[in-house]
């Protein structure tokens, strides 16, 4: 039995033109997100990992329409966002909320944090007293005693406390999906651990679904059920987190995981699998975008873009010519199982 996805993304694309000079000529195009497709299942945490410029934050902003996509479809609970009978933007924001990395920039500095949390429900039609009551309940839920903290201003709180307020605010209008964009990345380790535990508890208590975006692989592994690996605006691999960690199939995922310090004094890393920095997302390489850093790159990799293919029965998919038969790559067909050209990825087949 496969559950119906709560959020379904198909061919999501966003290109930013780079303009310069007196006449604002277009010098190039940043293909921030290019034909990205994935599903988010109800109740799961989907982790999104990748390095700077891979498009993970743009993807998050496209999901909640802080940025308008160039093309592609987003379906929420079976209804297409922006479609004729689908939910409006206002409805969408009510069901999907976002928490950002910079806890200070995301709060109004002139509003006590209790008011910040109450603002959303108030704007969505609750009476003032009810909204404040809900704010108090949520501050309590994120571990901040409302009697002590509700009247404080953002600058009077620590980074960890401010991030708790942001989480309370995101939950205040009872969303079903919370998108966490590097939400614990700016916090110190000991404080980040508290917030991570809080996120696990809140998810259970409020029946939430998370999209958790981070460059920190350790944190993603800890929190996620499935993980999406992105590189230069493309999804290169997606699968259950345990499966991807144990058997990463895309050469980029393998290199990324191998670059992660082991924290084991007897297993220090002796070799970097990748050299150089991620390339500039302006005018990315043809074919497979990873080929310029891939040690297995062949002629076919420059010529054709590898589609994301389902690999086996574990809902694990990757986009690499080596993983499918008859692609023309000398190492092709390494046990991959072709499932046609369908871009859809996820447990639904």
């Amino acid at each position, binding site marked *: 039995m496969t559950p119906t996805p709560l959020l379904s993304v198909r061919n999501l694309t966003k290109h930013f033109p780079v303009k310069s000079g007196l006449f604002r000529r277009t010098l190039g195009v940043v293909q921030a997100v290019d034909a990205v497709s994935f599903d988010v299942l109800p109740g799961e945490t989907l982790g999104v990992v990748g*390095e*700077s410029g891979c498009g993970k934050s743009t993807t998050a902003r496209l999901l909640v329409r802080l940025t308008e996509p160039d093309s592609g479809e987003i379906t929420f609970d079976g209804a297409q966002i922006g479609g004729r009978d689908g939910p409006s933007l206002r409805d969408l924001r009510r069901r999907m909320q976002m928490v950002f990395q910079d806890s200070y920039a995301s709060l109004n500095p002139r509003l006590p944090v209790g008011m910040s949390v109450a603002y959303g429900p108030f704007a969505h039609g609750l009476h003032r007293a009810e909204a404040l009551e809900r704010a108090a309940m949520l501050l309590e839920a994120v571990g901040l005693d409302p009697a002590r903290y509700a009247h404080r201003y953002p600058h009077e709180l*620590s980074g*960890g406390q401010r991030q708790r307020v942001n989480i309370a605010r995101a939950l205040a209008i009872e969303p079903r999906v919370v998108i966490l964009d590097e939400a614990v990345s700016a916090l*110190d*380790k*000991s*404080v*980040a*651990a*508290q917030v*991570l*535990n809080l996120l*696990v508890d809140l998810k259970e208590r409020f029946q939430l679904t998370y999209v958790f975006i981070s*460059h920190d*692989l*350790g*944190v993603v*592994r*800890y*929190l996620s059920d499935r993980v999406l690996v992105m590189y230069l605006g493309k999804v290169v691999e997606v699968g259950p*987190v*345990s499966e991807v960690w144990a058997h990463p199939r895309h050469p980029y995922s393998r*290199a*990324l995981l191998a*670059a*992660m*310090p*082991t*924290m*084991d*004094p*007897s297993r*220090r*890393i*002796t*070799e*970097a*699998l*990748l*050299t*150089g*920095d*991620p390339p*500039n997302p302006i005018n990315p390489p043809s074919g497979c975008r990873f080929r310029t850093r891939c040690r297995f790159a062949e002629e076919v990799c420059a010529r054709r873009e590898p589609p994301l293919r389902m690999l086996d029965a574990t809902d694990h998919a990757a986009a690499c010519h080596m993983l499918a038969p008859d692609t023309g790559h000398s190492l092709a067909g390494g046990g991959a199982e072709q499932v046609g050209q369908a871009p859809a990825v996820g447990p639904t087949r």
Partner: protein
Amino acid sequence: MSALATSLGVSATWAPVVSVRDLRVRFVTREGTVRAVNGVSFDLVPGEVLGILGESGSGKSVTLRALMGLLSGDRVRVEGEMRVAGFDIGRLTEAQTAALRGRTIAMIFQEPMLTLDPLYTIGEQIEETVIRHEHVTRQTAHARALELLEMVQIPGGARRLKAYPHEMSGGMRQRAMIAIALSCRPAILLADEPTTALDVTVQIQILLLLRRLQRELGMAVIFVTHDVGAAVEVADRLAVMYAGRFMEMGPMDAVIRSPRHPYTQGLLASTVHGSFHDHRVEAIPGMPPALIELAPGCPFAPRCRYVEDRCVATDPPDRSVGADHVARCVRASED
């Protein structure tokens, strides 16, 4: 160097190459006096890599800046003894400290864009450093710059020397900064979170590069980081810093495998690594103390699960918990 040594009447004894005793740094602000470093002591021998692990505000970067002689002004109070290559940093003049920098001690930072001059090419900046410290011709300096780029593995040497900092990627800028820091072959390299702003695949390249250069050049390195993983990759010895103090110091394996201070234990347990969410991370409750009104006693006491009356009463002394391994905790003992 030898001229400077003679003029100061110091014999340059090279063991240990850095020696710090009871370093204290306070910043006077309008809100009060911030006690950033509160009695730090350590020795660094030639060729050794000391990792200083700590969260923000623990005083790790301030310690490095003090060693580099970068803390000056009316609002800074630096106390204690710091000897670098035999010289007492506190008693040197500004000019003498400047002479030590580059040839004896050099520093790299988290953000190369703040260190590199945006108006000059990488080549000009390396040559400038070499000429200023070694009084060689521009030609010699140019050859040296090429050699340095090769050493830090920046491909396309001659062409790259003509590049401006903004034309380089983050990883390449970090390498260029390392090249400048190493241009006069310092005996001591201070590294302040040099890999923190980098992507994980680039971070490991820089860590491996630093490890290789440290070995090849026989430098002593102090590597400051908040990242346990990075510290494990480079350090021989590890100091764990909290509220301006070393809470624990010892051989890196010993500190990581059998941490003896409750703070170290908490920090390692709260670092999510290799675990799935079926078992919870153990977080340390509360947050680090404000350094303005630091209460007497152990600064970790308010967050410590083992806290006792004696922790609050007096500052715990360093206790030996193993070979070359100390922990600043009343409960710590040899077994």
